[in-house]
């Protein structure tokens, strides 16, 4: 298992030298810090007379569930729809498409058949002006995606560049040091010669007992040092042993780069939407792929703004494609192929077999936030183990945490009796018997 928590001396040295390098190469990094601002598409010529900004808002709230601008989704791609159909026709279609199909409008029937005979929701609430706005939005020319890519590329270049810069700086530094040493030697030589020339005898140093001999002779000091060394090594050995099997910060590379930051952070999807089993089961459950498809049926690519210098849009889109490959979804025909390939995630939180842990006890009954144990997951680009998952960590929380009893019929009687017994209103998990061995080990 990859262990990140174990900082041995080697890694510490590396870290220090890296820090030095960074300090020297700061200037070269500074330029990357400037945000690669996505180039906003210039407002297109409003050929339809609508307001594309308003149109965008309307599009996102009404149409985006089934339509995309540039790709087929449940419905066809809508960019340039005004070129394909008359405006009046579009008003009618949007207000009530099924009527048109029934009445046998050839264009309508054709469209209906082309899209797997899925009926489009009627939008009688949209005024003609609203539709104009939407059409204005859909008539905008496609934004150039070029801006994002070079940004990411530049980032990568910069990362490489900084490596070579560091080498140059190190080389120069070494050269300077060598020059300094040589100069020192030469100065010393010159001074000696001057002294000799002046007839000054440099008295040889008196032979003193070497410090190590003195140390060996002083038995008390030896004893104290030995004790100190033993204690110190004991301390480190203990520290080493105690972290065996503790995988805090374990952050394996997963088969699909799934970003909790995008899902739980940026899009504020509730944890328990995907990990629904956490409410009722002992395991939180890794969502099955059909749960992903609830949204990703329509989201086949990320927005331009999602891309970061580190991960490009193409990178994220490739991850969504991995999902499609696994679940057997054909983007072009918008249908399942039936060829599935389960995803083999690397398990991050591994409790030993002899520990029983139940999510629903903590999530549903205790009302504990997921973040209490799993950390600020909504900020994690790559998921990692936040807590040490040691027994001390569990017990610590059980000692401190008050049991959430309000409104739970199960605790009504027990709470009355226990609070009388302990003379407190709030009871910790430990007082409820949450430290007993058999509650978790069986």
């Amino acid at each position: 298992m990859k262990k990140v928590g174990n900082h041995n001396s080697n890694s510490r040295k590396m870290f220090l030298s890296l820090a030095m390098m960074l300090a020297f190469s700061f200037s070269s990094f500074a330029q990357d810090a400037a945000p690669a601002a996505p180039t906003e598409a210039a407002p297109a010529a409003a050929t339809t007379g609508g307001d594309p900004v308003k149109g965008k808002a309307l599009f996102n709230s009404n149409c985006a569930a089934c339509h995309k601008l540039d790709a087929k989704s449940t419905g066809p791609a809508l960019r340039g729809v005004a070129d394909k159909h008359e405006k009046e026709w579009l008003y009618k279609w949007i207000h009530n498409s099924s009527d048109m199909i029934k009445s046998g409008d050839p264009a309508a029937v054709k469209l209906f058949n082309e899209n797997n005979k899925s009926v489009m929701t009627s939008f009688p609430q949209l005024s003609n002006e609203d539709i104009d706005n939407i059409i204005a939005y859909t008539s905008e020319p496609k934004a150039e995606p070029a801006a994002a890519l070079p940004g990411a590329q530049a980032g990568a270049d910069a990362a490489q560049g900084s490596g070579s810069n560091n080498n140059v700086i190190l080389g120069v530094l070494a050269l300077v040091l060598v020059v300094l040493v040589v100069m020192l030697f030469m100065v010393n030589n010159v001074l000696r010669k001057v002294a000799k020339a002046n007839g000054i005898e440099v008295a040889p140093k008196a032979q003193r007992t070497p410090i190590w001999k003195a140390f060996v002779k002083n038995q008390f000091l030896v004893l104290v040092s030995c004790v100190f060394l033993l204690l110190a090594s004991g301390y480190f050995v203990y520290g080493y042993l105690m972290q065996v099997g503790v995988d805090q910060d374990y952050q394996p590379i997963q088969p699909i780069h799934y970003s909790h930051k995008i899902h739980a952070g940026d899009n504020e999807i509730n944890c328990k939407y995907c990990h629904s089993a956490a409410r009722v089961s002992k395991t939180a459950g890794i969502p099955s792929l059909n749960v992903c498809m609830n949204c990703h049926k329509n989201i086949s690519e990320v927005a331009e703004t999602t891309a970061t210098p580190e991960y490009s849009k193409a990178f994220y889109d490739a991850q969504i494609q991995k999902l499609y490959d696994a679940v057997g979804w054909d983007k072009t025909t918008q249908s399942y192929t039936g060829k599935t390939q389960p995803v083999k995630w690397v398990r991050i939180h591994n409790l030993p077999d002899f520990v029983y842990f139940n999510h629903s006890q903590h999530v549903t009954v205790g009302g504990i936030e997921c973040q209490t144990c799993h950390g600020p997951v909504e900020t994690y680009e790559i998921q990692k183990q936040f807590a040490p998952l040691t027994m001390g960590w569990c017990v610590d929380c059980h000692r401190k945490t008050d049991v959430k009893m309000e409104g739970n019929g199960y605790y009504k009687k027990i709470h009355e009796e226990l609070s009388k017994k302990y003379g407190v209103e709030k009871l910790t998990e430990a007082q409820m018997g949450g430290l007993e061995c058999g509650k978790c080990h069986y």
Partner: protein
Amino acid sequence: MSSNKKYWKSVEELENGSIVEALRNNEFVEEIPTDEFLANADSMSSSSTSRRDFLKYVGFSTAAATLAACEGPVHKSIPYVLQPEQIIPGVADYYATSVFDGFDFANLLVKTREGRPIKIENNTIVGAKFAANARIHASILSLYDSMRLKSPKIESKDSSWSVVDSKIKSSIADAKAKGGQVVLLTNTLASPSTEKLIADFIAANPNAKHVVYDAVSSSAALDAFESVYGERALVDYDFSKASLIVSVGADFLGDWQGGGYDTGYVQGRIPRNGKMSRHFQLEANMTLSGAAADKRLPMTVANQKQALVHIYNVVTGSAVAVNLAPELKAEVTKAAQQLKAAGSKGLLVSGIQDKNAQLLVLAINQVLASEAFTTVGVREIRKGSDEKVAQLVNDMKAGSVHTLIMSGVNPVYTLADSASFVEGLKKVKTSVALSLKEDETALASTIAAPVAHYLESWGDLVLTKGTYSLTQPTIRPLFDTKQFQDVLMSVNGLTGTYYDYLKAYSSSFIAGSTWNKVLHDGVFVGAPQALSGGTADYASAANALSKSKAAEGLELVLYTKTGLGDGQQANNPWLQEFPDPITRVSWDNYVTVSNADAKTLGLSNEIVANGGLNGSYATITTADGTKLENVPVIVQPGQAVGTVGLAVGYGRKAALKEEMQVGVNAYALYKGFKDVQSVTLVEAGGEHEFACVQGQKTLMGRGDIIKETSLEIFNTKDAKIWNETPKVSLDHKEVEATSVDLWESFDRSVGHHFNLSIDLNACTGCGACVIACHAENNVPVVGKAEVRRSRDMHWLRIDRYYSSEETFVGDNERKEGIAGLSSSLSTFNEMEIASDNPQVSFQPVMCQHCNHAPCETVCPVAATSHGRQGQNHMAYNRCVGTRYCANNCPYKVRRFNWFLYNKNSEFDYHMNDDLGRMVLNPDVNVRSRGVMEKCSFCIQSTQAVILEAKRQGREVAKDEFNNACACSAACSSGAMVFGDVNDKESEVAKLAESERMYHLLEHVGTKPNVFYHVKVRNT
């Protein structure tokens, strides 16, 4: 001057100096054959690897392995691609189903986790009256049997179903063309849709016929019932309505006529308002029913026949001449008179395999107008006809059978004359064995076709007339299997699935309900009608029976054991390791011999130095000369003199793991489907090593372990007399042991406090709890050799005690009468020997969860500690295996893992193969070597019940905890009740207040959370 004395160390040195000289120079007289195990000496010496290098490599690899071990493995986690709606990982699903395998039947709930069934539970819905026995509980493991037939085979070569189907079809067509017989040989099906398919098949093929074969026959009872009531069925007795039960050789608490009578029987056995039923048992072998009886009369089957006629005489007032010894006659008369007096509250049952005897049973119950004897909802679970099977074998030998299709039967193993069957099978053109295993019959047939286990199958069952149960799959077929019904549909030319057929066909049985409702409930109860009663010539039946002759020599009485039954599940390690409730011997069958006969025949049992039980071997020879050699002998207290018992179901070889190939095949002696054979027994020399879990047979008058009293004393005397609290001395005064305490007690008034109540009156020793505990708690199987070393892992054992006097009360009195050392030595010696007709008591013992537990105080690492809910916790990961706790436990219920029992080829049972491990309960840890384990009161389930309540924000419902413990949930007789004594409404709290309540070894002061109820016998 130096002495000439010769000093010598041994006679050899004095007399023969050369040996000593040789020994002085050479430690070993003979040269040690090092070359043999060092292979080639030359290559060894020329090797460049020196000893030093070798040690370096060892050191390096050890260090490398140690370092590598610090790195944890990478675990993969693979979710569903499309998660089925009803499956949530970590949450159990339950499916109602029913089973009938030709021998056992039950209405079940199957617990599944992540789509795999892991445990059998009883369906408790109204109408589901048949609870699972030990074998049904264990059948879940037979699903994951790695020795199952995995794909069809033709002539022992792998084939496919399409080939098999076409072969069967063409063979049937060929038979039709040539006029040969097509025979379907099946077990009793009790499945209306299957019977319909067979009827359709026969209608389309007039040359076809259906023969029903029960390996263990109930033909006599069926014939008798058929001749009187016109229907081939068995009475479904209601024992709860009987206040006086006379059983003549019927082990109704065992497998007699399918069994399943314990629930009703026990209802009358618990004293209520000073009343309980009275039970006379006349029998040859010691059975569970005999153990439960108030009065047991051991007698030969010949005598039983006479006794039955005598009872018939008394009840009906006839005067058929009876040939019975006077003292026996007097005892039988008592029973018969009480039976007559009980009238409609009386019940007579008999297991004598004789049509005349079974006719008398009908006659007596008709005269009594017994309420327990009802023809409403008769049992449809046995249909087999001995005559037709015999006819089939003759037809086969004559070569008139062209195609034989067998399902659910293994005649090559179960038929006494299996040689004739095999001979006939060779003359059959196409023989198809539809079987779970590649068993003896499948090996001898042309086509061996794998069928689905009942947990993978659809099906319908009419167990009793008027009820309708559905069998539904709980997992997809593990192998390339088909159901028998699918094969029938294919030969009938029907398309579609059997599921659709079943669904369509079920509508006529479930009028007023829906398919989904019946599937959910598992059963549907209609309105069964009583059969119109007929009569028969009972008098001549009685006459004929009274003239039946006694057997020459010894009477061999064949029976089925609680563990293996008819032997279908012989490859099930849970059942093999299950100790027989009576003899407490596992992994074997044996001939049971009475003490008197053993003495005359020179047969014996003894406990040898390592604590194991040894027994003589005997050779059994039947009247026609069939021999069964080297049958181990158990001297059985209570065995009727002149009879010996032997269980069928053992001695199988085909499709069994090597460890399971134990015992002898007693079916070889099941001549003419008669369970009584006249045999001679001869000592065969040699000693058999048994794996017996209980060496101590008798109670030695320790009346505080099993408290027993008679109904009379129970009704008339104060509880202090018959349920005395033991006294201890405190400050030189006798005080009650319960009043003395070394420890301060926890405050247990808040929250739950779990207690388990065990009623010794209700416990029949059936062992369902033992197997259920195995399944729930991942208890390992250790094998015969380890059981013999007393290393069995059963968390729950059922101790069986015999009385050394006629009664346990007599034992106590005898012990009280001991005066002085010499008297105590001789008396105790004598009391170790069980009486020839002892009383028998069962006592389930598991961890008593002492509130003041001796084990907890001695654990050096605090691995075992006490919970506030009353459970004694065992933290396996903390245990270092000192075994102090086991030594300090007065109840000896702690079990130590001497070895690693999972993934270890030395213990090749279910935990050693991937398939067998699928039965493991994911909520319970699988223990490793060097760890102590014991009953946990199923803490995983009690916690689950509490969590469920918390999640729903309610209090735990009344008696909701009872189903938490695997043992109490499995107990169909209600002997075990588990619950929270702090909930004053709960049943267990009421039982704890009962006057009959006592704790085991109360004087030790452990304050257990398990309590027992004094056994009351209606003598």
